[in-house]
Each structure stands twice: as structure tokens, then as C-alpha cells.
């Protein structure tokens, strides 16, 4: 039982903070309740409010696996609990740098001469006699590249119908869209924000440049997080409320 680090676990009204309750749930999930601060254990033992908080959160996470979370910020921190400390960031940075390094290495490897393998002549490998007279993929490559360029270009072609619809919807003053701007380059995680005189719920429909519905989201909020990945291309999005079309925008998906 740790008694020395119970600061930050209690609210001014004496009950556990969100962090305190979360730590208790961590302890239950990781079978480490005995390492909780004594003040936390003693308080929860006798406080039904905090028991309800801990149990409610645990109940949601009861079936989740807590295997690969890494060292625990409290239980594995010695001797002091930490905030976002530089060593953590350095370690992550090191991992990222190493991953990039490996990526660069993997990218460059095919351009290097092949390394000889046991039982194989390095000369034979370099001269590649078994490829002589065989059809190669060389001539086909430019065609495939050209095809994929064409396909890619087709995904970015504007839709005349949706362009018209977009221009007419912009004249409506009932809905103001803060983000994304018309034609903005976005990716997964983009945030759509608007204010509208229409009553929620809203429906946000994402269409490709051939007017095909790709995604439909329903929300009662005036913000929406694009949580799905989409192919690169030009997309349009419609905002609907109270059964009316409120807005049409376009985005470039990276």
C-alpha cells in the first residue's frame, strides 16, 4: 500500500477525482489493488459514492484486455508519480526515430546489390541468368502507372451537379460552416463544425465525386469527427437537418 502519493486523488468535497477513480480501476484490472494509496483504499472502503464511480467505470472495462499498456504511470513509477515527463517523450521519440530509420532502411534495401546467401553464387545472382529470355514486367510498368494515374485523376474530377448544388447552398444564410473550408485538404480525424438554425439531429453525408454516398453520420452535436479513413480523392459533403439540405461542401481527401 502506498501512502505517500495520495495528493491529486481527492476532490475538495472529499470524494475521488476522475484520476483517482481511474487509478482504482487500473488497480482492479491489473490485480494491483494492494499498491493503491492507503488513503484511497480507506476512503473507497467506506464511501458508496466512490464505490459506485469505480464500479461503474470498471463495469464498462470489465471485458477489456489490459495487457500491452506498458509500465503503469503510478504503480511502476518510482518514487514519484509523473506528469508528462521528458524521459517518456524521449523514449517515444527514440522509438519513432528507430521506426523511421527502419523504414528508410527497408526503402533503400532493394536498391542495393543483393547479399549472397549460403549455397548460392553471388556472381550468378548478380548476372541473373535465369531471367534471360523470360518475359519481364518492364514494358508493362508504364502502362500500369499510366492507368493508375488516370484512375487517380478521375477521383479528383469535379462533379458538375454537386458543384452547382454547393454554390446554391452557399447562398443560404441559415447554416454557417466553420470547418472544413471549401476544397480543404483533410484526412481521417478532420473536424466538421457548423452553426445552424435547424434543430438537431443533423445528418452528414459524404459523397464521392460521382455522387455516390460513401458515409452517413448522424449527430445531435454541431461538431463531427471524421473517424473513418477514405481513399484519396475529391469528396463532397452534405449537411441535412429537419429534412432539409443545409449545406454542401467539398473536401480533398489525402
Amino acid at each position, binding site marked *: *500500500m502506498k501512502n505517500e502519493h495520495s495528493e491529486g*486523488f481527492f476532490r475538495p468535497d472529499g470524494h475521488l477525482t*476522475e*484520476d483517482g477513480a*481511474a*487509478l*482504482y*480501476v*487500473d488497480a482492479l484490472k491489473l*490485480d*494491483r*489493488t*494492494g*499498491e493503491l494509496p492507503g488513503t484511497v*483504499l480507506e476512503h*473507497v*472502503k467506506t464511501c*458508496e459514492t466512490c*464505490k*459506485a464511480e*469505480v*464500479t*461503474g467505470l*470498471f*463495469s*464498462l*472495462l*470489465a*471485458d477489456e484486455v489490459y495487457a*500491452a*499498456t*506498458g*509500465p*503503469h*504511470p503510478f504503480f511502476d513509477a518510482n518514487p514519484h*508519480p*509523473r*506528469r*508528462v515527463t521528458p524521459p*517518456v*517523450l524521449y*523514449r*517515444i521519440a527514440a*522509438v519513432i526515430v528507430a*521506426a523511421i530509420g*527502419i523504414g528508410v532502411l*527497408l526503402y533503400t534495401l532493394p536498391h542495393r546489390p543483393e547479399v549472397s546467401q549460403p549455397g548460392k553464387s553471388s556472381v550468378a545472382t548478380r548476372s541473373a541468368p535465369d531471367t534471360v529470355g523470360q518475359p519481364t514486367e518492364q514494358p508493362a510498368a508504364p502502362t500500369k502507372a499510366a492507368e493508375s494515374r488516370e484512375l487517380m485523376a478521375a477521383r479528383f474530377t469535379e462533379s458538375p451537379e454537386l458543384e452547382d448544388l454547393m454554390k446554391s447552398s452557399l447562398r443560404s444564410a441559415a447554416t454557417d460552416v466553420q470547418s472544413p473550408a471549401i476544397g480543404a485538404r483533410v484526412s*481521417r*480525424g478532420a*473536424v466538421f463544425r457548423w452553426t445552424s438554425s435547424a434543430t438537431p*439531429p443533423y445528418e452528414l453525408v459524404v459523397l464521392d465525386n460521382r455522387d455516390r454516398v460513401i458515409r452517413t*453520420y*448522424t*449527430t*445531435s*452535436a454541431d*461538431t*463531427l*469527427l471524421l*473517424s473513418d479513413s477514405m481513399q484519396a480523392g475529391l469528396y463532397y459533403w452534405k449537411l441535412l437537418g429537419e429534412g432539409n439540405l443545409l449545406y454542401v461542401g467539398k473536401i480533398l481527401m489525402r
Partner: protein
Amino acid sequence: MSGAARRYILHMEDHANDVDIALLKDDPSALILRHQVTIRIIVKRFIESGMFQASEFDDVVQHVNARLLEKLPRIRAQYNGLSLFRTYISSIIRHECLDLHASRESDIHTERLLADPPNPESANPDNRLLIEHDVKVFRAIIRQFHDEMPKLLVCLKLVYRIPIEPKDILAWWPGCPEPDRSAFLNAISEGGKSLPARERFALLRPIANGADNSHSSADSVRHWTDDRIHVILRLLNGSPPTSSHTPETLGILLEDFFTPFLLHRQYIPGETDNNDTA
């Protein structure tokens, strides 16, 4: 992907909490994206509990996303890095769902749920999952009684007529003299189980007073136990209620606690789950 690259990615996932903390600092929107699965799991749980309708799933998920985006500055300021971020954000998501439910002031689903209580003994595979979930929650509740747990378990065994063993008494009162222990265990096993609760608790009185170094009446230990049974039931059922456990279904969970038949892992009296140095 090469083995080395895969190992590096696995290494990063092994430190998922460090990644969360770095994203919270540098790219909080990416952090919310990273936790979409958590949001979905929690919303799904609330739907299963009857608080939202299945058709509302996407709406509730987006509501939570919108609220998290709004609250990001507060989350950054308030998260003090003592718990796993995954658990911390789960708590925020839970409160957003509870607040949304409360704001709708809709008890329709809850009423429906209460009118149709789940049957823990049903062989339905979905119910089976629900039972396993409740077993885990019940065990988590019992652990929160901390050093009251050994006493509570003996008292619950007494209420539910589950055989009490010497090690149960020793977990509660390690210094319990053998004659006292034997006297109680003999009395309770020789027809004591058929006695009414009040008399069973009268048999326990010398042990309870010795363990707690008190002079309480048998009734006070019985009331103490009844009080905790009600607390456990309220915790199991949640607020707003999402289950309908009764003293009878609590008995099933308790029997499983000592002799698991619903889930693995047996409770061993006196054995803590970790290196408790208290």
C-alpha cells in the same frame, strides 16, 4: 513488413500509455481518433444496458466525439498522469454518456429493462456473456471492501449458508484461538446451517468480537452484513439501474466467488491479489 519493423510497432503498442500521453501533448485530435474503439465499446455497453437504443449508436458516438473535442483543453489540463490514459478517457466517455442519458430524461428503456429482468441462469449465449461480465463486476466490488473483505465474506457465507472453513476465520482474525474457531465451526456445521439467520449470527458473535476487538451484539453484525448486501446490490445494478440483481442472484455470484463455475480463478482466503505491504 520486416520482422524488425513489426517488432518496433509491437514495442510501441507495448507502451500504449506513453503513446497516449505524447499524443495528448502534441496531437490531441489524433488521440481521440486513437480511442474510437474505446468510445464504441462504451457506447455499445450503454446500448446493451438499455440506456440508449441500438439505432442511436452513431449519434451517441458522434456526440461523445464532439464533447471530447470541446473538452480537450480541460482534459490536457486536468489529466495528471497517475492513471492509464485509456482508463481516464473511459471515465470521461462514461460521464458524457450518463449526462446525455440524463439530459434526455428518458427512463423508457430502463423501465423496459426492469419489467423484463435478466435471468442469470439462462443458457442463452448472450446471457452467458452478461453473467461473466457480472461475475467480474461482483469480484471488483468485493475487492473495494479492502480490509473488511475477510469479515464480509464470512458473514456472507453465513447468510447464504455456504460452508465456512477455518481459513476463512483466520483470514479475518489471524490470531483466532483454535478452541474458539472449532467451537464456532462445529456449532455451525452440526445443524447450525438450518438455524435462522439471527441465531447463526449469535453463534458468530464470539469470533466477531474477538476479531474486531469489540463487544457488539449478534444483531449488529447481522445489520452490518445486511447493509453491505444492499450496497453490493445497488452497485451491481448501477445508477441509473442497468441490471436487476436480487439477494437471490447475489447468492449465485457469491457461490461462484468461492467455487467458480461461471469463470475461472478461485478466491483463496488470506491471499491478496498482489504484494500488499500494508
